[in-house]
């Protein structure tokens, strides 16, 4: 049965409000832990001086120049010099997996919201890309508070579906983002590792700073199943494997660890940050990783 338009809209607003609340709670609790130091002057870059004129904010007067020349100059900041971040969220079917409680996608959505909240709060420009086997949503970076609402609304509305096609998409993303910036990818990165490494190399070539948040469910790491299961692929309906889980657990874990090692190695080679977030972890681990990286930029 089709929902009336008002009800649908009300539900969407409620989701956005909830997401905003979560993002704010996460960020503020994190910031209070960091003594609010993270808000100091990261988000603007000095461009040039110009003579003071009426109406300019006094806080922008360069008092050092005034001391040397007795003339009032104000510092002029250019928007282009702000950090341009791109939040890339994997919305493929595999992100729907939820071992216990929250799905990977839900977790990623909240982390992305918190990061957007944090970055826009720091006057950084934040763009957003959602993808599965193609680019589904792309919002250019901006730093206004209204843009945050747009981002949160988009985040709240998006639902994971379809197959991952991560490596070509990262290639495409590397081509589309013309200005150097920070690319934050939230995904489980379940894609052929060789292709993924090439795509990451492409981003590195474009001199982007890249943070990879690999969202995983603990079960995907431990593979703790004790009986015969029919594993149904969440991205490709109809693909099913009947396996005696204990019998293949060791092999699975071996392959998974090998994949992780290769991904970690590739990230290290390109000096990308690679952070594994499991859905049972608090969200602020992602923020801490972001800030640590931001300080290095």
């Amino acid at each position, binding site marked *: 049965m089709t929902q009336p338009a008002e009800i649908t809209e009300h539900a969407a607003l409620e989701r956005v409000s909830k997401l905003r609340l979560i993002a704010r709670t996460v960020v503020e609790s994190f910031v209070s832990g960091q003594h609010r130091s993270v808000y100091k002057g990261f988000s603007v870059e000095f461009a040039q001086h110009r003579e003071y004129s009426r109406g300019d904010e006094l806080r922008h007067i360069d008092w050092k120049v005034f001391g040397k020349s007795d003339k009032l100059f104000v510092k002029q900041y250019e928007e282009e010099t702000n950090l341009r971040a791109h939040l890339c969220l994997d919305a493929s*079917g*595999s*992100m*729907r*997996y939820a071992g216990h409680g929250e799905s*990977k996608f839900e977790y990623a959505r909240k982390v992305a919201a918190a990061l957007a909240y944090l970055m826009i709060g720091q006057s950084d420009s934040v763009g957003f890309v959602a993808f599965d086997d193609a680019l589904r949503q792309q919002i250019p970076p901006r730093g206004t508070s209204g843009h945050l609402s747009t981002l949160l609304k988009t985040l709240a509305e998006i639902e994971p579906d379809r197959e991952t096609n991560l490596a070509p998409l990262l290639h495409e993303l590397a081509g589309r983002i013309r200005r150097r910036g920070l690319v934050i990818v939230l995904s*489980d990165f*379940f*894609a*052929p590792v060789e292709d993924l490494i090439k795509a990451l190399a492409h981003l590195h070539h474009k001199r982007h700073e890249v943070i990879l948040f690999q969202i995983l*469910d603990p079960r*995907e790491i431990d593979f703790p*199943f004790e*009986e*015969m*299961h*029919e*594993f*149904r*692929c*969440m*991205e*490709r309906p109809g*693909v099913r*494997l*009947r*396996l*005696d889980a*204990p*019998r*293949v*657990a*060791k*092999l*699975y874990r071996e*392959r*998974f660890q090998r*994949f992780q090692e290769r991904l970690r190695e590739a990230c290290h080679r390109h000096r990308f940050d690679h952070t594994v977030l499991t859905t049972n972890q608090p969200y602020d681990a992602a923020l801490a990783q972001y800030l640590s990286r931001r300080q290095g930029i």
Partner: protein
Amino acid sequence: MVFLNWILIGGLAAVAAPVIIHLLQRNRVTPLDWGAMMFLEELLAERARQIKLRELLLLLVRASILACLALALMRPTILASSGARAPDVHTSAVLLLDDSFSMNAGRARTAWQEARERAIRYVDTLRKGDDVTLLFTSAAGKGAPPAALFDLERVRELIREARPRHESADVARALDAAVKQLETRHNPRRELLFVTDLQAAGWELDDGARWSYLAGLVRSSRIAPQILLTSVGQERPSNVALTGLTPSRSVVDPYAAVTFHVTAANEGPEKAGDAAVTFFVNGAPKATRNVELAPGAREVLAFTYQFERPGSHLVSCRLRSGADELPDDNELLHSVVVLDRLPVLLVDGDRRTQPLASEADFLREALSPRDADDPTWRTVIETTAIDSTELKYADLSKYRVVVLANVAALPGATVGDLERFVVAGGGLLLAPGDRVQLGAYNRDLYRNGAGLLPVSLDKLGLSEPTPLVKVARGPEPAPAYLHLGGIVSNAPALELFRPERGQDWTQARIRQYVATGAPSGQDDVRVLASYSNGAAALVQKNLGEGKVYLLTTAVDTGWSDLPVHPFYVPLMQCLVFDLASAVIPPRNLRVGQALSYVTGAEAARHPHLLYRPQGDPLELAPRRQGALTVYTHDDTAAPGSYLVAPEGAGADERVHYTVTADRAESVMVRLEPGDLRRLERDLGAHYAPDWDSLGRLIGLDGGGYELSAWLILAAAGFCFLETWLLRRWS
């Protein structure tokens, strides 16, 4: 290798359990939506073969565990290849002892004593855990087999207590029972030891069907039995024996002497020059004859005696000889019933007022001839002539023989009475004539072979006076007649009329006769004599305890000139005597045959005692059967004279019975070496002529053991392997 508990072979089905569990589990999988599919797909792509191999290996290991346990329960055993005993293998043995009459042979030591010693020596070779079934040839295959015994001392005791029987051996039947008994046993080694004197009489090796069956039985045994034959006794002991005692007449009466023919035989290898046969009547010696018997010779001695009074008499003959190692076959007994009257009912179908005008008239004259010179002279036969219409009112139980002389047809009720009369032991003579209605005879009396008439009647001229069978006239005016021809079957009634006995019945001329159909092939119908053209002249049919004769020509002068020949009177009397010869119940019995005594209700008020060859008199239990009382005694294992008499009865009321051992046992001829080789070839039997060779055949030899313990160890090993593989691969 053999399986001792092969019945548990169904347990091997448990091998399928892991497969079934695997298949069931395949249907019971838990569905799980999964994101990290690429790792599973990759490992399957790379390791699918390995995973399948591992699963297969685990399946095999688990199936092996169950297979080992199932096989262990079936107790597989490797037998020693040489057929000899092995130290680790228990034996199920059947000890078959030949307890036939001939095992009594031997002077200083009988074959039976030797057999007993050898059997006990054999039992001594068995060990704790072995089992033995003790069988005897006299009882093996009759009724349920005795239980197998694990108590070897009890087996020895039973062997010591056993005695030979007075029965002949049926070796094939006994071996059949022994092989079947072995098949029911559980020990891995199977031995059948047959201790015998190898007397050829009981083997009947010519009966190929029985021995083929037995060979097949041995071949199809789950565990091939080791069949051992060992012989005891002398190769061919000297033995003279009385092998036959028969009276010359089937009906004995006090009016004429009867001759008893006694056959003495020398079955041994030595000449018996000092043999003497004594003839006894009711225990009193009447005559003795010396006889000289060469090896293999037979001599028939004749003792004639005229009984003075009717009733039951005991005739016996005893042989004395120095060259005899089996004295138990030197006596023969015969119970004789002496009749003072033999009532015969003549049914006249063509009654005339003139003398000697009908068939019945001729028969009456022949059966009860009158001596004009001596009015007191009489024969045992008493004839009563009635018209055929009176037959339905006649009490047939008063007669021993009924003669239907030219009776046209019989009503159905009368036919039923006659059938009951014959079945109960009566005799019936059918003498047709021109009045006989063929169709009625075939319909009521022949009844497609089920009735009284031995054969169907094909041709009889009833409407015209011309003969049924026209004798072809030759070119000369002298007519050509048929004659009585040969005696084609042995019959006591016709013994007197064989050409060698001086009677020439071929002179009789037959003008007409009734052509008959061929005998139906039943054993109870046979043609005794024929005409010169080969057609049947006299046909016999046994029905129940009685007998029917069909004479196919008339007994008067209408169809032949039989009555004018001298043999006519004795022929008719012999036929009647033979028809009346049935003594019901029989009084001359074989060993093991039940003894029966029948009396009326009045006599049954007194207790009836049985006097046996051994032991005290025994009171017989009466059993009512209609108006009669029947006394039966089953235990006639001991040969000799038995006597049944009401308590306190006189000599006239006593009834003698005789029980005789099979004289085939007197022939002391052993199996030939060729016979033994044949047994070895067909049955796989090994012959051991003495203990030493028998000991070699059953001697201990290496090899052979049960594999159950190893299989249980293997199952445990597979369990460990399964656990280890699971831990390694999980």
